[in-house]
């Protein structure tokens, strides 16, 4: 935010231009009684030096992944963001432009989105990707709506181990659409697919599954696509993009639609957003895909160029029958993901994924030997996040940790009352051996 000084002369000039004498003249329409109630005792104005110092002091009280050791996850992770990402997305050509889609004037933006889509397709092993959506939760909700539209059915089966906050968004999106949401059962930290065949009928539009799931466990999704195919239901997977460095991709698992939270791809946690909704699908479904899609073409001189394509899906043309009411994308965040992916490359992504895997398993192994701590899902494979049963309420460990600049993880009691003694811990490639050992030492005191 910039500091914009305002002199008495400037203020006078502004008031004159709009035809009033005093600022208070602008408030004459508000009844006096209400105005009096609104009297706020603001402190006296400060100079630029004073206000900068004041705001810096306030900001200094904040604790974030930059000044703590963070084991927080549950959808937003403390992955490394190379400085190049922030430098490039801060260039004003990218930073200040709002959807500059006119093809003739915005080839740079359109090309970067095209590159983004191409990388997402490679990452997910899917045939088409859109220009992105708001965040992972809205991407999954759009996938559910798309499935309902394609199959003309009105029920979605979902894994109970999708991030509960994402499920909330899904419920909000489907609330007025007369679409039924049915949760599959769970068993030992994984979705229980035993009765899947019995649950499939001519009402089921799709199955939605997150893997690694909310508890960090990797779901066994082999063959699920065939079972769904037999019932003409769609298979929708919700994934951690970093995990695709080593885990099977949505494409390999035969997913029809894949969605993801793109925050791990070079986007800071930033207290909750803006993040990135990653959305990809099979080519045969492209006309039902929500959001914008950029395509490559040639101009009259035969030179390569980029344009928005398949716009007849969108609401400025299709109005209320559009595939989605969201017609914008997270352009800047998609650019961050594009820069991140081009920096780390295929090998680098695999390396990041392996570091997450190794670090989290190293910590998990250490905690297994701590007295009073237990691992509820001992033989279930996990990627970078896992659940620990704690000897005291998880909240106690978390609160005390904040004092020592440690973010210990997520208190699962927030989501299930009986889980007050369960802590969800995420370990990224950023955690050093020393930090992990120090955390184990911290935990050993409980």
């Amino acid at each position, binding site marked *: 935010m910039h500091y914009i000084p305002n002199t008495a002369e400037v203020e006078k000039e502004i008031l004159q231009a709009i035809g009033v004498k005093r600022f208070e003249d602008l408030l004459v329409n508000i009844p006096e009684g209400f105005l009096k109630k609104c009297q706020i005792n603001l402190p006296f104005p400060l100079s630029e030096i004073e206000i900068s110092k004041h705001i810096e002091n306030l900001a200094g009280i904040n604790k974030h992944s930059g000044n703590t050791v963070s084991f927080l996850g549950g959808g937003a992770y403390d992955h490394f963001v190379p400085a190049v990402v922030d430098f490039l997305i801060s260039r004003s050509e990218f930073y200040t432009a709002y959807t500059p889609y006119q093809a003739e004037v915005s080839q740079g933006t359109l090309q970067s989105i095209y590159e983004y889509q191409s990388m997402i397709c490679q990452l997910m092993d899917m045939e088409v990707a859109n220009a992105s959506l708001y965040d992972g939760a809205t991407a999954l909700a759009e996938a559910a709506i798309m499935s309902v539209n394609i199959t*003309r059915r009105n029920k979605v089966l979902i894994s109970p181990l999708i991030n509960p906050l994402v499920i909330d968004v899904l419920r909000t999106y489907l609330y007025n659409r007369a679409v039924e949401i049915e949760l599959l059962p769970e068993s030992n930290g994984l979705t229980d697919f035993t009765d899947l065949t019995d649950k499939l009928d001519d009402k089921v539009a799709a199955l939605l599954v997150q893997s690694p799931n909310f508890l960090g466990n990797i779901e066994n999704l082999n063959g699920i696509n065939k079972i769904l195919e037999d019932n003409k239901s769609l298979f929708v997977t919700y994934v951690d993009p970093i995990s695709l460095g080593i885990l099977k991709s949505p494409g390999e698992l035969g997913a029809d639609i894949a969605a993801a939270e793109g925050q791990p791809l070079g986007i800071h946690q930033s207290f909750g957003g803006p993040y990135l909704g990653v959305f990809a699908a099979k080519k045969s479904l492209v*006309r039902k895909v929500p959001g914008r899609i950029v395509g490559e073409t040639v101009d009259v001189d035969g030179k390569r160029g980029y344009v928005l394509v398949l716009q*007849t899906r969108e609401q400025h*043309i*299709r109005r209320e*029958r559009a595939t989605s009411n969201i017609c914008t994308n997270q352009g800047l965040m998609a650019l961050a993901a594009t820069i991140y992916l081009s920096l780390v490359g295929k090998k680098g992504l695999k390396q990041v994924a392996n570091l997450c895997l190794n670090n989290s398993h190293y910590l998990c192994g250490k905690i297994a030997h701590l007295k009073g701590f237990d691992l509820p899902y001992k033989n279930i494979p996990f990627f970078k996040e896992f659940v620990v049963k704690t000897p005291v309420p998880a909240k106690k460990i978390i609160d005390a940790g904040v004092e020592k600049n440690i973010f210990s993880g997520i208190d699962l009691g927030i989501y299930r009352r009986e889980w007050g003694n369960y802590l969800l811990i995420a370990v990224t490639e950023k955690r050093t051996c020393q930090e992990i050992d120090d955390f184990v030492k911290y935990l050993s005191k409980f």
Partner: protein
Amino acid sequence: MNVPDNLKYTKNHEWALIDGDNATMGITDYAQSELGDVVFIELPAVGDTVSKGDAIGTIEAVKTVADVYTPVSGEVVEINEALNDASELVNKDPYGEGWIAKIKISDLSEIDGLLDSEDYKKLVS
């Protein structure tokens, strides 16, 4: 403007060829020329039960998209699958190879409510 005399028409620019209780339907020559090059057609599904005036499909042209409304109520018994790969047939031969769907009519009295070629000519002239 080609408006064959043997067909029935709607104000939404669909045509219907009535044969007993079967109707073959598509969009008119006028409609295809207004839309311009058709690039994609979303067809109804065989077995769909439709009511007169329902949007049963969509026609996508380069710059716009239009719904296709059924001129009669009934059941969709056949769709023109050739349009999946050759949507331009709607432009080239709207009353022939560019047909969209065949519907088994459930209420024959609805036919009386359709326009004849003279009425339709007046509508688009």
